[in-house]
């Protein structure tokens, strides 16, 4: 179980989230887990409309999960912090986090017991409320994101949009309705096997869905390699590769 004293040390007066994460040592923070869940959900939303036809129920449930996370992150101020870190890097940050997910699902050896989300949401809500006022003041210039689509999906750098890796939520649902598929943004075109490979890599799952393969966040590795900028270059190449697959260029 998570120790109360340790939590206070994390959030007390710290502005740099990476620094606090380093202080937690072996147990991944609630914020990191939440971020990973967010990234996993975003990837699922993207992948789900590369297949035959998206399962609307599944898409709606995932989208609601994303909204829930975003609301909570908005309330505790961590949402703004991620946005202010580096302009134009927001999308890459998210993909870097996805990369952690890849590593996490491959590094299954840890077997550390990590408390489930439910306990964290209980424990952290109280603490984060009192710290949000501090973090809000440092990020006063950035408007609190209200609309999921204007924040999660929008790039600071419009050139990044070219890959269409991140589309707004309304576009995803609209595409279901779209009678005249746009050739460039036609993510419903013929199923490409590389999509399935991407799916396999990112979710660590193939035909045998045994629990062992899917420990993912349950056996979370140490959060030392998160959003540090030194990883960005190699991950940008990865991003290009992923984008190429997606738009079949």
């Amino acid at each position, binding site marked *: 179980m998570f120790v109360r004293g340790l939590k206070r040390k994390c959030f007390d007066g710290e502005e740099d989230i990476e620094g606090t994460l380093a202080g937690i040592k072996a147990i991944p923070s609630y914020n990191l887990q939440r971020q990973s869940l967010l990234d996993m959900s975003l990837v699922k939303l993207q992948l789900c409309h590369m297949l035959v036809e998206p399962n609307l129920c599944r898409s*709606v449930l995932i989208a609601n999960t994303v909204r829930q996370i975003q609301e909570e992150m908005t309330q505790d101020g961590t949402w703004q912090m991620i946005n202010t870190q580096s302009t134009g890097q927001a999308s890459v940050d998210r993909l870097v986090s996805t990369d952690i997910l890849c590593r996490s699902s491959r590094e299954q050896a840890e077997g550390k017991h990590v408390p*489930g*989300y439910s306990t964290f949401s209980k424990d952290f809500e109280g603490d984060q409320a009192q710290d949000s006022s501090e973090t809000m003041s440092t990020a006063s210039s950035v408007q609190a994101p209200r609309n999921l689509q204007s924040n999660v999906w929008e790039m600071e750098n419009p050139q990044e949009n070219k890959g269409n890796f991140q589309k707004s939520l309304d576009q995803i649902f609209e595409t279901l309705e*779209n*009678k005249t598929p746009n050739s460039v943004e036609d993510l*419903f075109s013929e199923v490409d096997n590389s999509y399935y490979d991407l799916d396999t890599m990112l979710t660590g799952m193939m035909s045998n869905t045994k629990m062992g393969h*899917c420990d*993912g966040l349950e056996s979370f590795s140490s959060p030392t390699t998160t959003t540090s900028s030194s990883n960005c270059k190699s991950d940008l190449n990865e991003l290009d590769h992923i984008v190429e697959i997606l738009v079949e260029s």
Partner: protein
Amino acid sequence: SLAGFGNLMQDVLWCFSQVKGTIDIGVTEADIISTVEFNHTGELLATGDKGGRVVIFQREQESKNQPHRRGEYNVYSTFQSHEPEFDYLKSLEIEEKINKIRWLPQQNAAYFLLSTNDKTVKLWKVSERDKRPEGYNLKDEDGRLRDPSMITTLRVPVLRPMDLMVEATPRRVFANAHTYHINSISVNSDYETYMSADDLRINLWNFEITNQSFNIVDIKPANMEELTEVITAAEFHPHHCNTFVYSSSKGTIRLCDMRASALCDRHAKFFEEPEDPSNRSFFSEIISSISDVKFSHSGRYIMTRDYLTVKVWDLNMENRPIETYQVHDYLRSKLCSLYENDCIFDKFECVWNGSDSVIMTGSYNNFFRMFDRNTKRDVTLEASRENSKPRAILKPRKVCVGGKRRKDEISVDSLDFSKKILHTAWHPSENIIAVAATNNLYIFQDKVN
């Protein structure tokens, strides 16, 4: 002994009866069973698969010579119900997978069923032919036209016996009425109409009219960005032809009365259980999504299945279910992994027995669960080839949730999540159940003394 009414769980020993399907290791996806349904007498058992085929089994007459065989089910008819299609407007494939089969009550010698894929519902007539006409005047026996100038006498064609042939013909095709994927069909108790439900809309059809349907529920928001809830299942009341229910991805059930208004957007009753704040997590909504809703045979109760539980609701009490049964609560601590591998989106069905005293639903590792509503006892059984000796009694299974694992128990981490029992069916009046395990159909019966 004949079963169903008043049988208590401890009196029923379930035995293996039959298994249909191959035991090949490389199962083609087309063979995966996607729906199972007994007809109203239990004489016929239909399955639909991902390849769009329907296979109907018929129970053979019980013979005094072989009383232990208790009427086995053998193949009666096989036909291709749906073919894969391509939607050119959206550049999307339409899967031929049969989502649901529903039987019509038998009114003459022929059998009728509805089968549906994501977009199109079809009415199939299954009939027997054991006679054929012979002695036409204008055609010879091979069907070739005879030269009229060669005909010197007239004769009356006669019917002669032939080998029994069972033929399935599509009598109606109900198409182009659903933008989203059909998840449910339900035959009305008036036997003249039926409904089909997709993620956002429910349509009412008359069996005789294929070019029109009447929209009775529409939850599509004007702005799709605002979409947060979808329809997951729907069913007509077994006796009141004006009443139906539909369930949602937010764990709610709405009961509607078609007499109140043409478009049933306002429910007559709204069933929802208040959330338990101590159990709240990011996965709360997903696991509350209802995957199946079924009226009891009596029409007094509805049963719903969500990811971890089965609930029984009294139609007269909207604020909470009267009974809640844990199907596999040991998965509650694994929700993140199950979200990652998409298992959390698996849609399990649930069924009542003939007397509404026992309910059944599936789980993972080819386990399925039964709950006796009267004794509150439950049992976990497994559909596997190992337990497939004729009339072998099924041994109850148990999942070990930590601590010391006993000899016959299986630990949560050893469960095979690719082996899921999503579809089961219970004979309308006897203790005979059909359990679909991937491409195999298991039939179990209670032990004959």
